[in-house]
């Protein structure tokens, strides 16, 4: 059986950053496994700009962001395999893989980093009554066709969901000559970045209907039209508010879900809220020696944060291999409370924190002017005032290790009122 120090599952931004950081941290025998025909993952089809502002302090497109990491990985001589599918990951840190080139193999690693990313939610689609014609695409599938294959998926388009991919595709389709008629969002606010709403929709006079959903799809063979309607607070369509569009295409941008089929094969504990593995301060999952990072853990809104999180996972995987991690029960568990939907990481062993711990979280609803508070019992560990909070934007709080020393039990993260100022 071939053995490696570290096997990284997935060659997208998370896997690349983890592998590079692991190498820099002293692990030398690293293998990246990628199922696609090239590295870079979904970044290769995200040809729009807006990547890298935090990591590179400049504005790059997805392929550029990917290529910078691929070059660095090549320069370090890290081994990778393309067109290689991981079939199973086991808790003894063996993985089964297949590829056209090498057939079926089982590999052994000292540490594994899971970096499989996420997939698009289709649940929004299935509850739409009507026919099942051609012309209904997830925004990501359409993006691949248009940007990589040079193929148009339609001419008159309605988008359901105001996630960033949907907004970006509305602009892309418009620039390629399609007419984008409307974007309908079932929530009263958009999950996409304001910048995308302005530059992808309003620049092109595409209306955004908040609190609206698709109530029917028409067309037996190809989409011929859709009807949207306003929804009430229970997300039920309000009769009489219907707007009908003649269109040939419906794009769905209704959210992303961490892709954890392989994590399940290894018996890794998942967080039902994030859909990703429960992780500790090292980004290690409930199975010792198996780490996870990027969108497989929690869906990020910026690739820059994926890179940061993955560097952490890669560095800690190397530390584990080099015997620099103290194993044992966690000192602290984190818990989301009042207005906070989830917190990552889930557990903390204080001894393994190098300088500070970065807690990442999302809020449940949009809020204005609140304190984001980390508490140990009734004691405030850290408190930050936030003028604006929205579920679409991930929040993070860095806590120096000194503030945690000696603590045990639970760390809660919640929102608190800002006392009214005169």
């Amino acid at each position, binding site marked *: 059986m071939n053995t490696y120090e570290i096997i990284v599952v997935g060659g997208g931004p998370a896997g690349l950053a983890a592998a590079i950081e692991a190498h820099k941290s002293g692990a030398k025998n690293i293998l990246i496994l990628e199922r696609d025909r090239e590295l870079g993952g979904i970044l290769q089809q995200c*040809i*729009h700009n807006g990547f890298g502002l935090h990591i590179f302090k400049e504005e790059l497109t997805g392929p550029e962001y990917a290529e910078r990491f691929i070059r660095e990985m090549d320069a370090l001589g890290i081994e990778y395999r393309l067109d290689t599918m991981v079939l199973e990951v086991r808790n003894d840190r063996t993985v089964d893989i297949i590829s056209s080139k090498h057939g079926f193999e089982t590999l052994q690693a000292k540490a594994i980093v899971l970096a499989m990313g996420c997939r698009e939610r289709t649940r929004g689609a299935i509850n739409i009554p009507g026919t099942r014609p051609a012309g209904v695409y997830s925004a990501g599938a359409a993006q691949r066709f248009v940007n990589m*294959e*040079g193929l148009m998926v339609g001419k008159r388009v309605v988008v359901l969901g105001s996630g960033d991919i949907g907004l970006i595709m509305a602009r892309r389709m418009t620039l390629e000559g399609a007419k984008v008629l409307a974007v309908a969002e079932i929530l009263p606010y958009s999950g996409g970045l304001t910048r995308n709403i302005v530059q992808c929709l309003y620049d092109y006079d595409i209306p955004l209907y908040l609190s609206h959903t698709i109530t029917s799809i028409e067309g037996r063979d190809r989409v011929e039209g859709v009807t949207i309607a306003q929804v009430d607070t229970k997300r039920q369509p309000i009769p009489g508010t219907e707007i009908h569009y003649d269109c040939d295409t419906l794009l769905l941008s209704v959210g992303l879900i961490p892709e954890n089929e392989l994590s399940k094969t290894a018996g890794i504990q998942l967080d039902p809220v994030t859909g990703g593995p429960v992780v500790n301060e090292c980004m290690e999952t409930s199975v010792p020696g198996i780490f996870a990072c990027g969108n497989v853990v929690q869906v990020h809104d910026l690739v820059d944060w994926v890179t940061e999180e993955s560097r952490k996972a890669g560095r800690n995987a190397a530390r584990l291999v080099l015997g620099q991690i103290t194993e044992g029960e966690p000192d602290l568990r984190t818990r989301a409370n009042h207005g906070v939907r989830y917190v990552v990481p889930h557990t903390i062993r204080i001894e393994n924190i190098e300088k500070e711990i970065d807690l990442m979280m999302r809020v449940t609803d949009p809020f204005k002017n609140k304190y984001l508070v980390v508490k140990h019992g009734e004691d405030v560990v850290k408190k930050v005032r936030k003028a*604006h909070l929205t579920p679409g934007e991930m929040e993070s709080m860095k806590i120096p290790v000194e503030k945690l020393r000696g603590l045990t039990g639970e760390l809660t993260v919640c929102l608190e009122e800002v006392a009214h100022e005169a």
Partner: protein
Amino acid sequence: MKRDLICIVCPMGCRCSIEEDTSAPKGYKVTGITCKRGEDYAIKEVTEPTRMLTSTVRIEGARLPRLPVRTSGAIPKERIGECMALINQLQVRHPVAMGQVLLKNLFDTNVNLIASRSL
């Protein structure tokens, strides 16, 4: 003329109005904005709005039929249509390196069209 804008400088997404006001230091009165950066954004949006443009061009002999491209900097917003027309008729040949200039000095703006990946 008064215009309504949504500020994109930070996640606050301030809804603001802007109108010409010769008495104001910068010649514009901006209401509804909460910071200086937002005010600058609003004035730029009405005086000389610019955008970075990303798209694809045809490529021959490569593994994929399209090469992603972008402008090396922001171009005037009103030039986007013309710029797309130039992009749409462009065809390049494999191999292309990331950052390679495909069209120089678009509309005399000193901005180039560059390849945004190697292919």
